């Protein structure tokens, strides 16, 4: 099985789905699921193999290469599986929309382009796939038109800035070493001076930092996540944004190499140290902004930014523990954030697109599967023990504490507490509390939505209780970068400075819960009551008016709101509006009257003559 064939299937399948859909609607659904399923199977078959193949000779004098190793396999399997789940989820979500052919085409192209990125063995291929990904994402974000267009425009402008930065780095490497093959560059760069390495690191970090939404390059993300069609938001938040993390690991530990990266700069002005602080800021501020959101998708989007900070913190310090934590968190984050967006989408589907947290409520009895998805998703996001998010966060915290950076650890830990506040509001306002009268007849979600939610919920628990399964693979990645191997068992990690054993925690929680459940059953039986039959200490609570969570954290808002303005976004808007007004004034030069243009030419000639007579330049 060669990689070219895999990519041909990925791109060709997308096209075929589009053409098939034009003929007959059912074929489109069948083909989309078949292609995405085939990709999962094919990628899974490549496990453990490594290869490097030239697939195109002489593109501008360069060979284009595809390569496979554990690192790219790990990302590829995550991309293809989450892509498949998202396609399945779309089946009912997109059923009665217009332009569905186009939607599936773009969704599958985005998937294929991401696979292309992780399989690229040289920077030219990476750049090509990167651009395909960016542009098809743009088309998908703007799918809903209206405010989505503005969000997509913001995305593509920042994306282009990132691409230009990537291009500058590539050109610089090319003029210096006359090759863009990743393995060849990494051998050449080993002997480069540290100033040049710093330049390369910064240029590439801007590109990948924009994609991963590291502060202060995050501003495209909230609107894009909120406005994109929900199943695609899942892909966007799960893997596409995390291509930035792939890029960071690639540039720091594959291209430049661990030794050069960690020695870049001096004192507190080290590259990785500054990156880590950016990561810490990226955790704290967005997490607290998330508390102020009333839009379910915006709230999750801000968490998407915040969780990216944890990954950055993990990979920044270049220890095997931290790297494992960072990469593992990328996978875990993908799982739970996709789950959360799907659970929001399931609610949206049944409530005609409602995503305002203040007008939902009480849906737990109507949509139990979506609720379980939401519950496990937020547990993963918080990092409650026995969910996957806990293990990766534990690895990251431990790295920070053992390496002696307690303030970074503090930022990471306090981010968790901000998370609890906002996600509780998220879950409560959708599923708990009183069911509004207008949602009395809501049906449960269709099977094609329940299936991905159940699969992902199980994944959260399995990776939380048996983290050894993915960590074994991640450990292989770490050793391939030259880090020492970790002592991993199926249920945790052993080391001198602290051991993690999830199976112990699991059995303890299980036994305790079962015991108390029995005790609970043993007590006098409780009587089920209607939702509005509640005790309000003699005060009158009108039915169907229960929304006491509208300004849930108001006392806290009043204290912290002044500190949480998105100043950076306002700054970018200021730049944009000044450029616009500058361009607006420049436009007046072109009056459209020929007489003016003749005058400009004469004035310019006069200027030239004046310069020549005065200074005699020519």
């Amino acid at each position, binding site marked *: 099985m060669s990689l070219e064939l895999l990519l041909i299937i990925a791109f060709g399948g997308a096209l075929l789905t589009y053409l098939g859909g034009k003929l007959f609607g059912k074929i489109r659904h069948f083909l989309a699921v078949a292609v995405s399923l085939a990709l999962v199977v094919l990628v899974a078959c490549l496990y453990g193999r490594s290869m490097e193949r030239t697939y195109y000779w002489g593109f501008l004098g360069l060979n284009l290469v595809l390569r496979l190793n554990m690192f790219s396999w790990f990302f590829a399997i995550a991309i293809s599986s989450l892509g498949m789940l998202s396609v399945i989820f779309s089946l009912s979500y997109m059923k009665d929309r217009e332009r569905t052919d186009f939607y599936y085409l773009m969704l599958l192209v985005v998937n294929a382009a991401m696979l292309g990125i992780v399989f690229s063995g040289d920077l030219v291929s990476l750049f090509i796939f990167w651009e395909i990904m960016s542009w098809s994402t743009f088309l998908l974000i703007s799918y809903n038109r209206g405010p989505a267009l503005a969000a997509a425009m913001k995305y593509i402008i920042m994306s282009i800035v990132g691409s230009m930065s990537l291009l500058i780095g590539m050109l610089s490497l090319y003029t210096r070493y006359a090759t863009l093959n990743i393995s060849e560059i990494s051998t050449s760069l080993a002997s480069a001076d540290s100033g040049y390495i710093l330049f390369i690191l910064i240029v590439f970090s801007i590109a990948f930092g924009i994609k991963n939404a590291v502060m202060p390059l995050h501003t495209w993300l909230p609107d894009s996540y909120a406005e994109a069609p929900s199943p695609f938001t899942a892909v966007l938040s799960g893997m596409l944004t995390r291509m930035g993390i792939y890029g960071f690991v690639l540039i720091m530990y594959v291209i430049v190499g661990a030794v050069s990266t960690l020695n870049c700069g001096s004192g507190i002005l080290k590259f990785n140290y500054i990156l880590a602080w950016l990561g810490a800021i990226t955790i704290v501020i967005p997490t607290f902004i998330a508390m102020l959101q009333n839009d379910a998708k915006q709230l999750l989007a801000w968490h998407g930014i915040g969780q990216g900070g944890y990954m950055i913190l993990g990979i920044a310090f270049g220890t095997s523990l931290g790297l494992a934590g960072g990469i593992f968190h990328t996978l875990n984050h993908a799982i739970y954030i996709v789950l959360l967006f799907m659970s929001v989408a399931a609610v949206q589907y049944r409530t005609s697109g409602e995503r305002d947290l203040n007008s939902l409520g009480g849906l737990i009895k109507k949509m139990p599967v979506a609720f379980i998805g939401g519950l496990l998703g937020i547990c993963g996001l918080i990092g409650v023990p026995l969910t996957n998010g*806990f293990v990766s966060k534990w690895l990251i915290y431990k790295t920070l*504490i053992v390496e002696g950076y307690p303030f970074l650890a503090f930022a990471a830990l306090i981010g968790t507490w901000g998370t609890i506040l906002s996600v509780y509001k998220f879950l409560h306002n959708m599923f708990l509390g009183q069911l509004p009268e207008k949602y009395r007849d809501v049906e449960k979600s269709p099977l094609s939505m329940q299936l991905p939610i159940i699969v992902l919920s199980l994944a959260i628990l399995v990776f939380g209780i048996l983290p050894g399964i993915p960590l074994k693979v991640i450990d292989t990645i770490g050793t391939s970068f030259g880090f020492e191997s970790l002592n991993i068992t199926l249920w945790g990690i052993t080391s001198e400075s602290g051991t993690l054993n999830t199976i112990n925690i699991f059995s303890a929680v299980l036994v305790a819960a079962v015991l108390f459940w029995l005790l609970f059953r043993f007590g006098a039986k409780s009587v089920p009551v209607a939702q509005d039959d509640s005790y309000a200490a003699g005060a009158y609570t009108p039915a169907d008016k229960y929304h006491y969570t509208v300004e849930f954290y108001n006392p806290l808002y009043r204290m912290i709101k002044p500190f949480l303005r998105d100043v950076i976004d306002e700054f970018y808007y200021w730049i944009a509006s000044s450029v616009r007004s500058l361009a607006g004034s420049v436009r007046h030069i072109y009056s459209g009257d020929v007489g003016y243009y003749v005058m400009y030419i004469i004035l310019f000639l006069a200027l030239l003559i004046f310069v020549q007579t005065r200074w005699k330049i020519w």
Partner: protein
Amino acid sequence: MVTKIIHIIFSPILALVVGIFFLGLARKIMARIHWRYGPPLVQPVIDMIRLFYQKSVSHGRMFDLGIILSLAGSIVVVLFLPFGQICPLAGSGGLLVILYIMLLAPLGLALSGGQGANPNISIGISRKLILSLGYEVPLLLVLLAVMTCYKTISIVEVVNAQDNTGWSITSWPLFLSGLSYFLILPAILGIRPFDVSSAPQEISSGPMAEYGGKYLAIATIEHAFVLFISIALFVNLFLGGAANPAIFFVKMLVVFVLGLCINAVFPRFKIEQAIRYLWKWPTLLAFLGLIMTLVIRS
């Protein structure tokens, strides 16, 4: 192996007994401060047995499961805390795990209360969550100072290290952290002046407004565990743990009574005042403690 099993079974029971004793003691001491006689020490036990046989209402599946989850979380934390020399789950993740499992208790109660669909519950939960964010800031700084000082994330090693170096609270930079922990202890316990989230006269016990019968009994057990956990954590981190459960218990008793007597005379804070207090003095002390620990370590 056998001793381990015995420890696993007995340490939660021991913790429960201690916690409930503290609940009874608290009522007695408060009564005496108010110049009342007060209920007998075993009153909480009597109440609990009575409550188990009383009728109650349920608002749904999550209403039941949330409270069980919350209690299970508390019990697991107990297994992670050294009680004297008893620590059944010593090598399973250390302080970071304790910190995270302590989440399960408020989260479970909040989920359970959420399905209760009652305005008082909402207000109570909102206050509880804000308050916990308030005290987490200094608490995390304190724990990080301890972990940085002893260069470990294992609580057993922190206790053992104090055998050689003396109690943390008597050593210089950690004294500030210990003081800070003591200042936020009433907020963690939710006793005066930080009883904003239960506030019986104001929002009819907040998160517990819909609970009756066995729900209330379990909520009481939960409260007993929280009492035990937060004081035991202090004793372990700053008072050097103990060689056997008896001495450990005496240390806990001293801390508890001291804290209670100081705080019993304060009126209740408003939630903003509570946050402002927590983010001012205790945070400042904890911050200084962490910085000094870092300076001394390097």
